[in-house]
């Protein structure tokens, strides 16, 4: 039996469940309470669990992310919502210099079981300061675990696994996904945060995507399918550490790969995936790994330019065909 639900509601249910299951869990961030959550994920939860556990913070990203880290050190299990990745730039010191280093610097004494969630991505005409996709930055940092639920099922179940994790987990939610609907598989439960998932099997080419680009990859795969090219689509799910094994096993079968990344191309995740595939499948590759990324430009406001800046299905199809020499 399956059920249709929005990504937003799946996250909402995950939050409620977490708050119910463990008194140590609290949700904190800007406008998580009265406003109803910027993306309505936490709507109503403050009424159910009180303002101490669903806690509005002032505009002070470094302060409240750091407070979340401290609260985790102090025995709580905070879920810190940073409205969007764009504002997380203000909290990077806390995330990189504190959360990611504490376990190591303290010789293993202090782990930081915090979950930091943030919306990411472009596509809603929010212009240059509100449209970043900086997953790549976070995925660069040892000590952080970085996940990106792309499906409603992952939105529903990843949070619990992230809270279970003793290390800091950064969770990226593509803003375009909140309103998306999908089927929630009945057998849901803890998600293995270390594993990518093959969302569509195929034998001709491997397409790697995550978060906001997964649906584009799947759409491209359908289109390729009608041209007789069977693409395997991998949803990375965990951006750090990367599940090389799943990717490499796939490419060993398909001998070709394309990465779809909404981040800027240079020094992004697409580069790492390309490099890892090439390192591990060099003698099996029939073409260089293709990269379909955002244009290297601050995202412009007008829709036609914004859409032109973002990776799109035709570009994925074209890159796949190029790799197939077609």
């Amino acid at each position, binding site marked *: 039996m399956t059920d249709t639900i929005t990504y937003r509601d799946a996250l909402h249910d995950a939050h409620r469940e977490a708050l119910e299951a463990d008194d140590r869990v609290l949700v904190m961030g800007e406008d998580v309470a009265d406003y109803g959550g910027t993306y309505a994920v936490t709507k109503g939860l403050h009424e159910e669990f009180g303002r101490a556990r669903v806690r509005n913070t002032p505009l002070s990203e470094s302060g409240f992310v750091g407070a979340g880290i401290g609260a985790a050190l102090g025995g709580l299990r905070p879920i810190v919502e940073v409205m969007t990745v764009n504002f997380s730039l203000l909290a990077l010191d806390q995330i990189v210099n504190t959360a990611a280093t504490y376990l190591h610097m303290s010789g293993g004494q202090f782990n930081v079981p915090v979950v930091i969630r943030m919306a990411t991505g472009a596509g809603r005409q929010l*212009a240059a300061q509100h449209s970043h996709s900086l997953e790549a930055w976070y995925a660069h940092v040892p000590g952080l675990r970085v996940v990106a639920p792309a499906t409603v099922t992952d939105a529903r179940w990843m949070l619990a696994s992230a809270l279970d994790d003793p290390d800091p987990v950064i969770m990226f939610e593509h803003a375009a996904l909140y309103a998306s609907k999908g089927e929630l598989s009945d057998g849901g439960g803890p998600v293995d945060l270390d594993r990518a998932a093959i969302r569509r099997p195929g034998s001709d080419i491997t397409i790697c995507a995550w978060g906001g680009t997964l649906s584009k990859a799947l759409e491209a795969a359908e289109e390729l399918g009608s041209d007789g090219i069977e693409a395997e689509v991998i949803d990375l799910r965990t951006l750090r550490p990367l599940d090389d094994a799943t990717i490499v096993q796939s490419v060993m079968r398909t001998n070709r790969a394309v990465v779809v990344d909404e981040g800027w191309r240079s020094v992004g995740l697409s580069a790492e995936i390309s490099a890892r595939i090439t390192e591990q499948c060099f003698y099996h590759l029939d073409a260089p790994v293709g990269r379909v990324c*955002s244009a290297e430009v601050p995202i412009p406001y007008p829709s036609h330019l914004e859409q032109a800046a973002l990776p*799109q299905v035709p570009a994925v199809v074209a890159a796949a065909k190029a790799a197939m020499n077609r």
Partner: protein
Amino acid sequence: MTAALPAIETTVRLLGDMIRIRVMEERCAELYQQTKIRGFLHLAIGEEAVSTGVVSRLQPDDAVVATYREHGHALVKGIDAARIMAEMYGKVEGCSGGRGGSMHLFDADHRFYGGNAIVGGHLPLAVGLGLADDMLDGHRATACFFGEGAMAEGEFHEAMNLAALWDTPTLFVCENNLYAMGTSLESSESETNLAVKAAAYNLPAWSVDGMDVVAVAEATDRALTSIRGGGGPVFLEAKTYRFRAHSMFDPDLYRSKDEIERWKERDPIVTFTDRLIEAGHIDAEGIEQLWAGARAEMDDAVAFAEAGTWEPVERLTTNVYRRTPSSGHPAPETERGQV
């Protein structure tokens, strides 16, 4: 309590500017419903006395640095309504060439430095502009606008301290509308007397009724006199209220209808209209002319925006660098995500 009225030319101009802003923003809301304007749209309806009162007192070569809620500031600073409207449409003729939209109005000719959408992020900029003016020129000032919510940000703190240490010619204007999205002042600031909070940076700081355009204008004059006299930065809190939701996405769940209605009774345009009529500065016909003029101006602005052109997609990657690198291979077209 209420400040005495200045000369007629001034009062009518102030009222007219508030009306222009109001008409423009109401038009924007309609255009948003029609999906002509997209992205985030933050209206300052109810807060017109602040932008008008402050910006109208600036000299043409004074600078303005503002937030995403800056349509009024841009208009009063002198940017053509048509170019503002075209920007909201995302057209090439917009004041930011269409790249910025509602949150990022810019104009070099009028020294209008945005339209910044990172809360608090533009305060350091204002300090830097002041530093430059100080070192290069010596008489220009910069007015920097921000909401009360921004005062919790570290960048507010750092900027205030720098400005006060360096005595930059900066007028910090806090548009205290009591809410930062859905977060009330009480849950965002441990010290809700914002002038007291600001005074801790060792600079002159005071509050003014942000629903009274004359009071705001007078406070601005006083501040600018001090600033131009070398007195360093000044902090001004203008107590105001936004009648509409935070943005077009905001369901406005966090405050009561009652509260909104109570504030609407203090509508800066309505109250100032009454006052001017009472003082004999203007009559009903004059008022109607102001509104009609504003409507006509905005009709023209919308027509201009409608007739504007879309940037060709080929120009997508322009204006990333002013200097184009002499080498380095751009990514092949097919991989750049072109549609």
